[in-house]
C-alpha cells in the first residue's frame, strides 16, 4: 500500500482517499492546534466547508485534509496556529 508521512510516521492510503480520511483510518484524529488556545482540532464537516482540518502539506500551510487527495511521498504535518509563524521571523 502506498504511504505518505504524517509528522514523520508513514500513513498508508488507498486510491481516491483524502489525506484526512487516511489519517482517520490510521487513528489520527487531531490534525492541528488552534492559534489562540492551542486546542486540538480534527475533521468536522468533512466536505471542505468548515476549514477545521487545516494542516501543512509539502510545506504549504492551511490545506484542507478532507479535500486534498492522498499521494505517495506527501510530507504532511500537524499545523500549529496559523501555520505561518515563519512569516514573523
Amino acid at each position, binding site marked *: 500500500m502506498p504511504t505518505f508521512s504524517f509528522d514523520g510516521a508513514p500513513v498508508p492510503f*488507498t*486510491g*481516491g*482517499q*483524502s489525506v484526512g*480520511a*487516511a489519517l*482517520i*483510518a490510521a487513528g489520527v*484524529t*487531531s490534525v492541528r492546534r*488552534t*492559534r*489562540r*488556545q492551542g*486546542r*486540538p*482540532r*480534527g*475533521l*468536522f*464537516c*468533512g*466536505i*471542505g*466547508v*468548515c*476549514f*477545521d482540518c*487545516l494542516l501543512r502539506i509539502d510545506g*504549504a500551510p*492551511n490545506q484542507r485534509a*478532507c*479535500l486534498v*487527495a492522498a499521494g505517495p511521498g506527501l510530507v504532511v504535518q500537524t499545523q500549529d496556529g496559523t501555520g505561518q509563524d515563519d512569516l514573523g521571523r
Partner: protein
Amino acid sequence: MTWDADVCVVGAGPAGLAAAVHAAEGGASVTLLDSGAALGGQYWRHPVSADGALDRDLHHDVEVFAGLSRRAAALTDRGSLTYLPGQHVWTLSAGQDGCLIRALVPGPPAAETVVKARLTILATGAMDRPLPFPGWDLPGVMTVGGLQSLLKGHGVLAGQRVLLAGTGPLLLSAAAGVVARGGTVTGVLESARQRAWARHLPALARVPEKLAEGARYAAVLARRGVTVRSGVMVTAAHGQDRVRSVSTARISRDGHAEPGRERLYEADVLAVGWGFIPRLELHTAVGCELSADAHGDVAVTVDDDQFTSNPVVLAAGEPTGIGGASLAVTEGQIAGIAAAHRLGHGAGPPAGLKDRRARLRAFAAALASVYTDPGGWGERLTDDTIICRCEEVSYAEVRQALELGAGDVRTVKLLSRAGMGWCQGRICGYAVACLAGGRAADPAAALRMPLAAPLPLGLLANADLNAGTGPGDGS
C-alpha cells in the same frame, strides 16, 4: 480556461446531474461544474477510483444515479455535455444576455475556469446544520455528513464506537451505514419527539416509498440492537484530546433539558446534525429573491419552471427548500427541460413532473416541521463554550457583544469576530443569528458573503471583474 455554453450547471449532485442531463438531452450545450472529484455530490458520494458503481449497502436510489451517469457519459461522448470536476465556483455574475461563472481549481498552482453561459442552473446543495454545545470542538465530534462522506467517499469508518445525535432521517441511514461496515453504534438520539408526526399523516400517505425506506432502516438497526431514542439532545461532549463520552438529556417540547433524565454515553465519534442549511452563496451573489419558512429557514424563491427572480438563473434541489434527493432530482429534471425550452429547444416541463414535485414538496414540508432545531440549546452553553470555531470566539465573548447592543449577526461579528474566520460564518452563522435574535428581521443575514469560496489574492488581482455582465464582452 474559458468555456462557452448555452447552460452552465453548478453542482453535480442529484439536482445538478439531473438538470445537466435533461438540458443537454433537450438540445442545449451544457457545462457542468462541480467541486467534487466524481459525479454524485454529497448524496451519491463514492470513491473516485471505483468504476462509478455505488455500494448498495451505503446508498439508495442507486439505479437513478446509474441511469443519469450513463446518460451523462453518452452526452459527453456526443459533445453536448462538458463535465469539469474539482471546480470551486467562487463567483457568478448575471446580466441581460447571460452569465459569467468563475471557478478556482485549487493548486498548487491554482488555476481558474471561466464559463460564459446564456443560462445558469444553480444546484449547490446543502450542508449539515450544526448547533454548538460544550465540547463540540473536540476531535471526534463531526457532522453526520462528515461521517457519511468518510464512509461513502473514502471507505473509512470514522471510529469504532459511534454515537449519532441530531434530527432527521439521515441519522438512521448514517447509523445503518456504520453498522453495515462493522462499526458499533452506541446510540441514535433524535431530538424530535415521536408524537410530532401525528398531524402530518396526509402528507406521508402520498409518498409511501419514503415510509418503507424509514421502516427498513429501523429494522436494520433494531436487528443490531441499536436503540433510537426520540426527544433526546446532546448536552456536552467530554474528553481531553478527543471525545470520549457524551452527556445527553431528555428534552421538553421547547428544548429544555428535563432534570433527572440525563445520561452518559461512551463514544469515540459523535456525529451531529440538526437538519440542513442550503448553500445559497451564489444565489445571493446575483440577487436572487429569498424567502423564509415558518421556522425562519431560508430558501431561494423559484417559479413553476425553477427560474429564480434573476431571469437568467434557475435553481434546483436543496437551495429551493430542503427536500431530499428525490425532490432534488425532480427539480433538476424540470430545470434542465425548462432551460433548454427557454433557449428554443423542445417543449416545456411536462405536467407529470410538476405533480411529482408537488407531492414531494408536501412531504418535505412535513419533514421540515418535525425535524427542526429543537431550541433550548442556548441555555446549555457555558462561558467557555466555543461558538465560532475558526476564530475561537467563546459564548462569553458573544454574550458580551450582545450586551453591548449587537442585535444581528453582522454586529456580533464586528464586535466579537464570530464568523470572521476561514469558513466565513458558514458553521456558526445560524447559531449566532439565533443568539442575536435578529433572524426574524433578516433571516438571510448569515448567508451573505462576497466570495463563495476562499481564493488566492493573486487570482483575485488578475481577475477582470468588470467583464462580468455577459458573454461576448471580451474578458
